[in-house]
Protein backbone atom coordinates (compact mmCIF):
# COMPACT_ATOMS: atom_id res chain seq x y z
CA UNK A 1 0.00 0.00 0.00
CA UNK A 2 2.94 2.32 0.74
CA UNK A 3 4.17 2.17 -2.85
CA UNK A 4 0.84 3.06 -4.38
CA UNK A 5 0.85 6.48 -6.04
CA UNK A 6 -0.98 9.16 -4.13
CA UNK A 7 -3.46 9.77 -6.89
CA UNK A 8 -4.54 6.15 -6.81
CA UNK A 9 -4.89 6.22 -3.03
CA UNK A 10 -7.00 9.37 -3.20
CA UNK A 11 -9.21 7.77 -5.83
CA UNK A 12 -9.69 4.63 -3.75
CA UNK A 13 -10.30 6.61 -0.58
CA UNK A 14 -12.89 8.70 -2.40
CA UNK A 15 -14.85 5.61 -3.11
CA UNK A 16 -14.76 4.59 0.52
CA UNK A 17 -11.58 2.49 0.78
CA UNK A 18 -10.56 3.03 4.42
CA UNK A 19 -7.23 1.20 3.94
CA UNK A 20 -6.26 3.59 1.19
CA UNK A 21 -7.24 6.51 3.37
CA UNK A 22 -5.21 5.12 6.25
CA UNK A 23 -2.13 5.07 4.05
CA UNK A 24 -2.76 8.71 3.21
CA UNK A 25 -3.27 9.57 6.89
CA UNK A 26 0.01 7.91 7.84
CA UNK A 27 1.79 9.56 4.94
CA UNK A 28 0.60 13.01 5.95
CA UNK A 29 0.21 12.81 9.71
CA UNK A 30 3.55 14.49 10.44
CA UNK A 31 3.03 17.36 8.04
CA UNK A 32 -0.54 17.92 9.16
CA UNK A 33 0.36 17.69 12.84
CA UNK A 34 3.34 20.03 12.35
CA UNK A 35 0.98 22.61 10.90
CA UNK A 36 -1.67 22.27 13.59
CA UNK A 37 0.99 22.25 16.32
CA UNK A 38 2.38 25.55 15.18
CA UNK A 39 -1.06 26.99 14.57
CA UNK A 40 -2.54 25.92 17.90
CA UNK A 41 0.58 26.23 20.02
CA UNK A 42 0.09 23.14 22.15
CA UNK A 43 0.07 19.43 21.55
CA UNK A 44 -3.43 18.60 22.83
CA UNK A 45 -5.16 21.16 20.62
CA UNK A 46 -2.87 20.30 17.72
CA UNK A 47 -3.81 16.66 17.96
CA UNK A 48 -7.48 17.49 18.08
CA UNK A 49 -7.22 19.82 15.10
CA UNK A 50 -5.17 17.26 13.14
CA UNK A 51 -7.74 14.57 13.79
CA UNK A 52 -10.54 16.90 12.85
CA UNK A 53 -8.73 17.71 9.64
CA UNK A 54 -8.35 14.04 8.72
CA UNK A 55 -11.93 13.21 9.62
CA UNK A 56 -13.07 16.22 7.67
CA UNK A 57 -10.95 15.00 4.75
CA UNK A 58 -12.59 11.58 4.90
CA UNK A 59 -15.99 13.18 4.97
CA UNK A 60 -15.25 15.65 2.21
CA UNK A 61 -13.19 13.39 -0.07
CA UNK A 62 -16.17 12.55 -2.26
CA UNK A 63 -16.33 16.25 -3.05
CA UNK A 64 -12.60 16.62 -3.67
CA UNK A 65 -12.30 17.32 -7.35
CA UNK A 66 -8.54 17.44 -7.51
CA UNK A 67 -8.40 21.10 -8.49
CA UNK A 68 -5.70 21.58 -5.88
CA UNK A 69 -3.20 18.89 -4.91
CA UNK A 70 -4.28 16.53 -2.16
CA UNK A 71 -1.53 17.95 0.11
CA UNK A 72 -2.68 21.50 -0.44
CA UNK A 73 -6.27 20.52 0.21
CA UNK A 74 -5.32 18.68 3.38
CA UNK A 75 -3.24 21.61 4.66
CA UNK A 76 -6.22 23.83 4.08
CA UNK A 77 -8.44 21.57 6.14
CA UNK A 78 -5.77 21.47 8.86
CA UNK A 79 -5.37 25.22 8.85
CA UNK A 80 -9.15 25.69 8.99
CA UNK A 81 -9.49 23.12 11.77
CA UNK A 82 -6.82 24.93 13.78
CA UNK A 83 -8.38 28.33 13.32
CA UNK A 84 -11.82 26.94 14.14
CA UNK A 85 -10.48 25.35 17.28
CA UNK A 86 -8.70 28.52 18.36
CA UNK A 87 -11.81 30.54 17.81
CA UNK A 88 -13.96 28.01 19.57
CA UNK A 89 -11.90 27.74 22.64
CA UNK A 90 -10.50 31.25 22.56
CA UNK A 91 -7.32 29.84 23.85
CA UNK A 92 -4.88 31.75 21.78
CA UNK A 93 -4.21 34.35 24.42
CA UNK A 94 -4.35 31.92 27.27
CA UNK A 95 -1.48 29.82 25.96
CA UNK A 96 1.28 29.86 28.47
CA UNK A 97 4.38 31.59 27.27
CA UNK A 98 6.63 28.98 28.79
CA UNK A 99 4.76 26.02 27.39
CA UNK A 100 7.25 23.34 28.28
CA UNK A 101 5.82 20.67 26.01
CA UNK A 102 6.87 22.61 22.97
CA UNK A 103 10.50 22.34 23.80
CA UNK A 104 12.28 19.94 21.56
CA UNK A 105 15.84 19.35 22.58
CA UNK A 106 17.17 17.53 19.62
CA UNK A 107 20.91 17.93 19.40
CA UNK A 108 22.33 19.02 16.09
CA UNK A 109 25.67 17.33 15.63
CA UNK A 110 26.97 20.12 13.39
CA UNK A 111 26.74 22.69 16.16
CA UNK A 112 28.93 23.24 19.20
CA UNK A 113 27.11 22.97 22.55
CA UNK A 114 27.13 26.74 22.81
CA UNK A 115 25.74 27.21 19.31
CA UNK A 116 23.19 24.53 19.98
CA UNK A 117 22.05 26.25 23.16
CA UNK A 118 21.72 29.52 21.29
CA UNK A 119 19.79 27.88 18.51
CA UNK A 120 17.42 26.22 20.96
CA UNK A 121 16.88 29.50 22.72
CA UNK A 122 16.08 31.23 19.45
CA UNK A 123 13.84 28.33 18.43
CA UNK A 124 11.84 28.63 21.63
CA UNK A 125 11.55 32.37 21.15
CA UNK A 126 10.37 31.84 17.57
CA UNK A 127 7.65 29.50 18.79
CA UNK A 128 6.53 32.03 21.35
CA UNK A 129 6.71 34.80 18.77
CA UNK A 130 4.65 32.77 16.31
CA UNK A 131 1.98 32.30 18.92
CA UNK A 132 1.74 36.02 19.41
CA UNK A 133 1.04 36.63 15.71
CA UNK A 134 -2.44 36.84 14.22
CA UNK A 135 -3.58 33.47 12.82
CA UNK A 136 -3.27 34.62 9.21
CA UNK A 137 0.36 35.66 9.58
CA UNK A 138 1.27 32.56 11.55
CA UNK A 139 -0.25 30.27 8.93
CA UNK A 140 1.75 31.71 6.04
CA UNK A 141 5.01 31.65 7.98
CA UNK A 142 4.55 28.05 9.09
CA UNK A 143 3.61 26.91 5.59
CA UNK A 144 6.61 28.76 4.20
CA UNK A 145 9.31 27.95 6.76
CA UNK A 146 8.22 24.55 8.03
CA UNK A 147 6.43 23.05 5.04
CA UNK A 148 8.53 25.01 2.55
CA UNK A 149 5.61 25.72 0.27
CA UNK A 150 5.96 28.23 -2.55
CA UNK A 151 3.85 31.39 -2.54
CA UNK A 152 1.55 29.84 -5.13
CA UNK A 153 1.09 26.71 -3.01
CA UNK A 154 0.37 28.80 0.07
CA UNK A 155 -2.11 30.79 -1.98
CA UNK A 156 -3.85 27.56 -3.03
CA UNK A 157 -3.79 26.22 0.50
CA UNK A 158 -5.27 29.25 2.17
CA UNK A 159 -7.47 30.25 -0.76
CA UNK A 160 -6.10 33.77 -0.89
CA UNK A 161 -4.32 35.43 -3.81
CA UNK A 162 -0.56 35.46 -4.13
CA UNK A 163 -0.44 39.20 -3.41
CA UNK A 164 -2.05 38.56 -0.04
CA UNK A 165 0.46 35.79 0.65
CA UNK A 166 3.32 38.19 -0.10
CA UNK A 167 2.03 40.88 2.19
CA UNK A 168 1.18 38.46 5.01
CA UNK A 169 4.65 36.93 4.83
CA UNK A 170 6.19 40.37 4.90
CA UNK A 171 4.12 41.58 7.83
CA UNK A 172 4.37 38.33 9.73
CA UNK A 173 8.12 38.13 9.34
CA UNK A 174 8.55 41.76 10.28
CA UNK A 175 6.48 41.28 13.42
CA UNK A 176 8.41 38.17 14.31
CA UNK A 177 11.70 40.01 13.90
CA UNK A 178 10.38 42.83 16.07
CA UNK A 179 9.29 40.33 18.70
CA UNK A 180 12.71 38.68 18.70
CA UNK A 181 14.37 42.07 19.03
CA UNK A 182 12.12 43.03 21.94
CA UNK A 183 12.88 39.74 23.69
CA UNK A 184 16.62 40.24 23.27
CA UNK A 185 17.15 37.43 20.77
CA UNK A 186 18.07 39.81 17.99
CA UNK A 187 20.30 42.80 18.57
CA UNK A 188 18.63 46.10 18.03
CA UNK A 189 19.89 47.22 14.66
CA UNK A 190 22.49 49.95 14.45
CA UNK A 191 21.07 53.34 13.67
CA UNK A 192 20.48 53.86 9.99
CA UNK A 193 22.54 56.27 7.95
CA UNK A 194 19.64 58.68 7.99
CA UNK A 195 19.34 58.59 11.79
CA UNK A 196 23.08 59.05 12.20
CA UNK A 197 22.94 62.05 9.99
CA UNK A 198 20.02 63.51 11.89
CA UNK A 199 21.78 62.92 15.19
CA UNK A 200 24.90 64.83 14.19
Amino acid sequence: MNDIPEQQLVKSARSGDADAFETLVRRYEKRVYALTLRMCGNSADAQEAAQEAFLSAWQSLPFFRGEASFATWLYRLASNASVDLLRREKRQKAVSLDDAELTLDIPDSRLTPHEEAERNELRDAIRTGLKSLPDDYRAVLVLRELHQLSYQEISDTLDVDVGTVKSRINRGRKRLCEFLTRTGNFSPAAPSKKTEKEGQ
Partner: protein
Amino acid sequence: MKICENYALLLDQFLDGELSKEDEALVREHLVSCPACAAYVADAMAIRAAFEDLDEIEVPEGLSDGVMAVIRAHAAPRKKNHRWMKAAASLAACAAIVFAAVRIIPFGASSGTSAASAESAPMEARAGDVTDGVESPAEARQQLTADSEMSDPLSSSNLESGQNSAPVSVEPFALAPNSAQDSGSGEAPKTAVGPMLSANLNSDAASYRKWANLTAAAVGTELDGYSGIPRQDDAGRSYTAYELSESEFDALIARLGAEDKVTAYDTSDSTLYLIAVYP
Protein backbone atom coordinates in the same frame (compact mmCIF):
# COMPACT_ATOMS: atom_id res chain seq x y z
CA MET B 1 16.10 50.71 11.72
CA LYS B 2 13.57 50.70 8.96
CA ILE B 3 13.94 48.80 5.78
CA CYS B 4 13.45 50.64 2.52
CA GLU B 5 9.78 50.76 1.67
CA ASN B 6 10.22 50.07 -2.00
CA TYR B 7 12.18 46.93 -1.17
CA ALA B 8 9.91 45.66 1.62
CA LEU B 9 8.11 42.95 -0.36
CA LEU B 10 11.10 42.23 -2.60
CA LEU B 11 13.25 41.27 0.38
CA ASP B 12 10.85 38.51 1.40
CA GLN B 13 10.54 37.24 -2.14
CA PHE B 14 14.32 37.29 -2.34
CA LEU B 15 14.53 35.21 0.85
CA ASP B 16 11.89 32.81 -0.41
CA GLY B 17 13.35 32.34 -3.87
CA GLU B 18 10.34 33.90 -5.54
CA LEU B 19 12.19 36.51 -7.62
CA SER B 20 13.39 36.42 -11.19
CA LYS B 21 17.16 36.35 -11.69
CA GLU B 22 17.17 40.03 -12.67
CA ASP B 23 15.25 41.13 -9.58
CA GLU B 24 17.37 38.91 -7.41
CA ALA B 25 20.50 40.65 -8.71
CA LEU B 26 18.85 44.00 -8.05
CA VAL B 27 18.13 43.10 -4.44
CA ARG B 28 21.63 41.70 -3.94
CA GLU B 29 23.08 44.95 -5.17
CA HIS B 30 20.82 46.92 -2.85
CA LEU B 31 21.77 44.83 0.17
CA VAL B 32 25.43 45.75 -0.25
CA SER B 33 24.64 49.40 0.18
CA CYS B 34 21.77 49.25 2.69
CA PRO B 35 22.56 47.98 6.19
CA ALA B 36 18.91 48.15 7.28
CA CYS B 37 17.66 45.84 4.54
CA ALA B 38 20.72 43.61 4.97
CA ALA B 39 19.96 43.32 8.70
CA TYR B 40 16.36 42.32 7.93
CA VAL B 41 17.53 39.62 5.53
CA ALA B 42 20.08 38.39 8.08
CA ASP B 43 17.42 38.20 10.80
CA ALA B 44 15.03 36.36 8.52
CA MET B 45 17.79 33.92 7.61
CA ALA B 46 18.47 33.37 11.32
CA ILE B 47 14.78 32.62 11.85
CA ARG B 48 14.89 30.13 9.01
CA ALA B 49 18.00 28.44 10.37
CA ALA B 50 16.46 28.10 13.82
CA PHE B 51 12.99 27.12 12.60
CA GLU B 52 12.34 23.52 13.45
CA ASP B 53 12.36 20.88 10.74
CA LEU B 54 9.49 18.57 10.01
CA ASP B 55 11.78 15.68 10.96
CA GLU B 56 12.07 17.05 14.45
CA ILE B 57 8.38 17.03 15.10
CA GLU B 58 7.19 13.99 16.91
CA VAL B 59 3.68 12.94 16.07
CA PRO B 60 1.77 11.83 19.17
CA GLU B 61 1.28 8.13 19.31
CA GLY B 62 -2.16 7.01 18.27
CA LEU B 63 -3.07 10.00 16.12
CA SER B 64 -3.60 7.97 12.96
CA ASP B 65 -5.01 5.04 14.90
CA GLY B 66 -7.56 7.30 16.54
CA VAL B 67 -8.67 8.73 13.21
CA MET B 68 -8.95 5.31 11.59
CA ALA B 69 -10.72 3.79 14.57
CA VAL B 70 -13.41 6.42 14.28
CA ILE B 71 -13.73 5.95 10.53
CA ARG B 72 -13.78 2.18 10.69
CA ALA B 73 -16.35 2.22 13.46
CA HIS B 74 -18.67 3.95 10.96
CA ALA B 75 -18.84 6.96 13.15
CA ALA B 76 -17.05 9.17 10.69
CA PRO B 77 -17.88 12.79 11.05
CA ARG B 78 -21.23 14.02 10.02
CA LYS B 79 -20.63 17.02 12.13
CA LYS B 80 -17.57 19.18 12.07
CA ASN B 81 -17.62 20.22 15.67
CA HIS B 82 -16.27 17.05 17.23
CA ARG B 83 -16.10 18.12 20.81
CA TRP B 84 -15.45 14.52 21.64
CA MET B 85 -12.22 14.47 19.70
CA LYS B 86 -10.32 16.06 22.55
CA ALA B 87 -11.20 13.17 24.78
CA ALA B 88 -10.62 10.67 22.01
CA ALA B 89 -7.25 12.17 21.32
CA SER B 90 -6.13 11.71 24.85
CA LEU B 91 -7.08 8.06 24.94
CA ALA B 92 -5.67 5.10 23.11
CA ALA B 93 -7.08 3.96 19.82
CA CYS B 94 -9.35 1.42 21.48
CA ALA B 95 -10.89 4.14 23.54
CA ALA B 96 -11.52 6.06 20.36
CA ILE B 97 -13.76 3.23 19.25
CA VAL B 98 -15.78 3.67 22.40
CA PHE B 99 -16.31 7.30 21.64
CA ALA B 100 -17.14 6.49 18.07
CA ALA B 101 -19.65 3.95 19.23
CA VAL B 102 -21.39 6.10 21.75
CA ARG B 103 -21.49 8.95 19.31
CA ILE B 104 -24.44 7.37 17.58
CA ILE B 105 -26.45 6.70 20.71
CA PRO B 106 -28.31 9.99 20.45
CA PHE B 107 -29.50 8.96 17.00
CA GLY B 108 -30.77 5.72 18.39
CA ALA B 109 -32.53 7.58 21.16
CA SER B 110 -34.48 9.77 18.81
CA SER B 111 -37.73 8.85 17.19
CA GLY B 112 -37.90 7.44 13.71
CA THR B 113 -34.33 6.20 13.67
CA SER B 114 -34.74 2.49 13.47
CA ALA B 115 -31.84 2.15 11.08
CA ALA B 116 -29.53 4.07 13.35
CA SER B 117 -30.74 2.15 16.38
CA ALA B 118 -30.07 -1.16 14.71
CA GLU B 119 -26.63 0.06 13.78
CA SER B 120 -25.85 1.21 17.27
CA ALA B 121 -26.61 -2.06 18.99
CA PRO B 122 -23.57 -4.08 17.91
CA MET B 123 -21.38 -1.04 18.32
CA GLU B 124 -22.38 -0.69 21.93
CA ALA B 125 -21.51 -4.32 22.51
CA ARG B 126 -18.17 -3.76 20.86
CA ALA B 127 -17.56 -0.73 23.01
CA GLY B 128 -18.19 -2.82 26.08
CA ASP B 129 -15.64 -5.35 24.92
CA VAL B 130 -12.78 -3.03 24.31
CA THR B 131 -13.38 -0.41 26.94
CA ASP B 132 -10.64 0.16 29.39
CA GLY B 133 -11.44 2.79 31.96
CA VAL B 134 -14.87 3.59 30.62
CA GLU B 135 -17.02 0.91 32.07
CA SER B 136 -20.20 1.11 30.07
CA PRO B 137 -21.60 2.90 27.06
CA ALA B 138 -23.73 4.90 29.46
CA GLU B 139 -20.68 6.01 31.36
CA ALA B 140 -18.83 6.78 28.18
CA ARG B 141 -21.77 8.83 27.03
CA GLN B 142 -21.78 10.64 30.32
CA GLN B 143 -18.15 11.49 29.71
CA LEU B 144 -19.03 12.65 26.26
CA THR B 145 -21.84 14.72 27.58
CA ALA B 146 -19.42 16.38 29.91
CA ASP B 147 -17.17 16.94 26.93
CA SER B 148 -19.87 18.89 25.22
CA GLU B 149 -19.40 21.51 27.87
CA MET B 150 -15.80 22.12 26.96
CA SER B 151 -16.43 25.81 26.58
CA ASP B 152 -16.91 25.87 30.30
CA PRO B 153 -13.42 26.02 31.79
CA LEU B 154 -14.58 24.08 34.82
CA SER B 155 -15.95 21.19 32.81
CA SER B 156 -12.87 21.26 30.67
CA SER B 157 -10.57 20.92 33.63
CA ASN B 158 -12.72 18.16 35.03
CA LEU B 159 -12.42 16.21 31.85
CA GLU B 160 -8.72 16.74 31.49
CA SER B 161 -8.12 15.59 35.03
CA GLY B 162 -10.04 12.43 34.29
CA GLN B 163 -13.07 13.20 36.43
CA ASN B 164 -16.52 12.60 35.11
CA SER B 165 -18.82 15.53 35.37
CA ALA B 166 -22.45 15.05 36.15
CA PRO B 167 -24.59 14.65 33.06
CA VAL B 168 -25.71 17.94 31.66
CA SER B 169 -28.71 18.75 29.59
CA VAL B 170 -26.82 19.79 26.48
CA GLU B 171 -26.93 17.04 23.88
CA PRO B 172 -23.46 16.55 22.47
CA PHE B 173 -24.39 15.42 19.02
CA ALA B 174 -27.44 17.45 18.21
CA LEU B 175 -27.22 18.08 14.50
CA ALA B 176 -28.88 21.44 14.55
CA PRO B 177 -31.04 23.54 16.82
CA ASN B 178 -34.03 21.72 15.42
CA SER B 179 -32.47 18.29 15.46
CA ALA B 180 -34.31 15.06 15.99
CA GLN B 181 -33.32 15.32 19.61
CA ASP B 182 -36.07 17.82 20.11
CA SER B 183 -38.72 15.54 18.75
CA GLY B 184 -39.91 14.49 22.16
CA SER B 185 -40.54 17.91 23.53
CA GLY B 186 -40.59 20.39 20.69
CA GLU B 187 -41.52 20.55 17.06
CA ALA B 188 -40.18 17.62 15.07
CA PRO B 189 -37.98 18.40 12.08
CA LYS B 190 -40.08 19.07 9.04
CA THR B 191 -38.14 16.65 6.93
CA ALA B 192 -38.46 12.94 7.29
CA VAL B 193 -34.92 12.46 6.02
CA GLY B 194 -33.30 14.21 8.94
CA PRO B 195 -32.89 11.14 11.13
CA MET B 196 -31.46 9.20 8.19
CA LEU B 197 -28.44 11.44 8.03
CA SER B 198 -26.26 9.02 9.90
CA ALA B 199 -27.07 6.31 7.43
CA ASN B 200 -25.81 8.47 4.58
CA LEU B 201 -22.50 9.15 6.16
CA ASN B 202 -20.34 8.80 3.12
CA SER B 203 -22.74 10.19 0.62
CA ASP B 204 -21.15 12.00 -2.26
CA ALA B 205 -22.55 14.06 -5.06
CA ALA B 206 -23.73 10.88 -6.76
CA SER B 207 -25.76 10.11 -3.67
CA TYR B 208 -28.12 12.88 -4.58
CA ARG B 209 -30.47 13.14 -7.49
CA LYS B 210 -30.21 16.89 -7.50
CA TRP B 211 -27.94 19.35 -5.80
CA ALA B 212 -28.18 23.13 -5.37
CA ASN B 213 -25.65 25.56 -3.92
CA LEU B 214 -27.36 28.54 -2.35
CA THR B 215 -26.34 31.33 -0.04
CA ALA B 216 -27.85 31.74 3.41
CA ALA B 217 -29.12 35.14 2.31
CA ALA B 218 -30.95 33.63 -0.64
CA VAL B 219 -32.47 30.87 1.46
CA GLY B 220 -33.64 33.19 4.22
CA THR B 221 -35.87 31.38 6.66
CA GLU B 222 -37.03 28.76 4.14
CA LEU B 223 -35.04 25.96 5.78
CA ASP B 224 -35.78 26.92 9.36
CA GLY B 225 -36.94 23.80 11.12
CA TYR B 226 -34.91 21.45 8.93
CA SER B 227 -31.91 19.57 10.24
CA GLY B 228 -28.67 20.57 8.59
CA ILE B 229 -25.16 19.19 8.83
CA PRO B 230 -22.02 21.28 8.61
CA ARG B 231 -19.65 20.12 5.87
CA GLN B 232 -16.74 21.43 3.90
CA ASP B 233 -16.51 21.49 0.15
CA ASP B 234 -13.54 20.78 -2.08
CA ALA B 235 -12.26 24.30 -1.58
CA GLY B 236 -12.46 23.99 2.20
CA ARG B 237 -15.45 26.31 2.46
CA SER B 238 -17.97 25.50 5.10
CA TYR B 239 -21.54 24.93 4.15
CA THR B 240 -24.60 23.38 5.71
CA ALA B 241 -26.12 20.40 3.95
CA TYR B 242 -29.88 19.89 3.98
CA GLU B 243 -31.15 16.62 2.59
CA LEU B 244 -34.67 16.93 1.26
CA SER B 245 -37.23 14.82 -0.51
CA GLU B 246 -37.98 15.52 -4.16
CA SER B 247 -41.18 17.43 -3.48
CA GLU B 248 -39.57 19.53 -0.74
CA PHE B 249 -36.58 20.26 -2.93
CA ASP B 250 -38.61 21.22 -6.00
CA ALA B 251 -41.00 23.35 -3.97
CA LEU B 252 -38.16 25.20 -2.29
CA ILE B 253 -36.25 25.79 -5.53
CA ALA B 254 -39.45 27.07 -7.15
CA ARG B 255 -40.18 29.41 -4.24
CA LEU B 256 -36.67 30.81 -4.41
CA GLY B 257 -36.60 30.92 -8.20
CA ALA B 258 -33.23 29.17 -8.00
CA GLU B 259 -33.65 26.70 -10.87
CA ASP B 260 -30.36 27.86 -12.36
CA LYS B 261 -28.50 26.74 -9.22
CA VAL B 262 -29.60 23.13 -9.54
CA THR B 263 -27.30 20.40 -10.76
CA ALA B 264 -29.07 17.16 -11.61
CA TYR B 265 -27.36 13.79 -11.37
CA ASP B 266 -29.70 11.80 -13.55
CA THR B 267 -27.64 8.66 -13.25
CA SER B 268 -27.98 8.60 -9.49
CA ASP B 269 -30.20 5.98 -7.91
CA SER B 270 -30.73 8.22 -4.94
CA THR B 271 -34.05 9.62 -3.90
CA LEU B 272 -32.36 12.38 -1.91
CA TYR B 273 -32.02 15.99 -2.91
CA LEU B 274 -29.46 18.28 -1.39
CA ILE B 275 -29.41 21.99 -0.68
CA ALA B 276 -25.93 23.28 0.23
CA VAL B 277 -26.23 26.56 2.08
CA TYR B 278 -23.15 28.76 2.16
CA PRO B 279 -22.82 31.53 4.70
